[in-house]
């Protein structure tokens, strides 16, 4: 049985391209999330995470200043955010990249291009797994 998603969660969408942030935001809204904030690179994302109460991060990989992988490593080493669910949405689909992201503690991974259904499915998988482990 699918766990019910907490649609009141505050979601941070991180991507250097405004287009992709908008696409992800639109999909999150379709799913039912209403509390969505954005950052255009990993460094800005980390600053928001430290200042605000973020519940879930959806991040790109290739970004200037701080990549999505570096952001993920920073999240996992920040006391306040170390258990935060992170979904990576990226063009980096090679097996070694996926392995790097898994080693760094990513919760789930989507390779671009993607459909809205895939995003919803991956998010549901994250929270089903976390619910089962809690």
């Amino acid at each position: 049985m699918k766990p019910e998603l907490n649609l009141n969660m505050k979601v941070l969408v991180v991507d250097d391209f405004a287009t992709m942030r908008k696409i992800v935001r639109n999909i999150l809204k379709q799913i039912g999330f209403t509390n969505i904030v954005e950052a255009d690179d990993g460094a800005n994302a980390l600053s928001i995470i430290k200042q605000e109460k973020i519940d879930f991060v959806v991040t790109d990989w290739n970004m200037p200043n701080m990549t999505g992988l570096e952001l993920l490593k920073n999240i996992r080493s920040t006391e306040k955010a170390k258990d935060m669910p992170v979904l990576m949405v990226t063009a980096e689909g090679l097996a070694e990249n996926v392995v790097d992201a898994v080693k760094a503690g990513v919760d789930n991974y989507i390779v671009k291009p993607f459909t809205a259904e895939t995003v919803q499915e991956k998010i549901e998988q994250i929270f089903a797994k976390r619910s089962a482990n809690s």
Partner: protein
Amino acid sequence: MNVEFINPFLSATIGVLKTMAFTEVTAGKPFLKNDKISRGDVSGVVGITGPPNGSMSLTFSKECIMEIVSNMLGETFQEVTDDIKDAVGELSNMISGTARNDLGNKGYSFKTSIPTVVSGPGHEIRHMCKAPTIAIPFNTKAGPFVVEISFENGTPTKG
């Protein structure tokens, strides 16, 4: 140029536009392009580092890209705005990334750069090497676009 490098870019173009912009495209007959003048209104260019080094570009007609981005974002556009240019960059990023993954799965190792976007009538596309440029015209219901690929001769890194 190794023709094995061309197909992944074509499949990636078709797949990305279908999945992200719900746009069906048909490929036309490839031709050799001997000048730098673009065949459209806005282009995204991505450098590719191998060896061999090369680059790819996507050039859209105004009508075509406005329809594609409208489909992607659920908004209507009348002009080539900054949002449209950003979308061309992201499309270039996704298409080159998908092709790179495909080539990577075949054992070829490439890196791709962050895309640059150029626009305006008759704008120039500067490929990263002096090798011949293969242009593949595509058509959509909203208008045409062109994919250009240029790779220098050289032995690819495999494995």
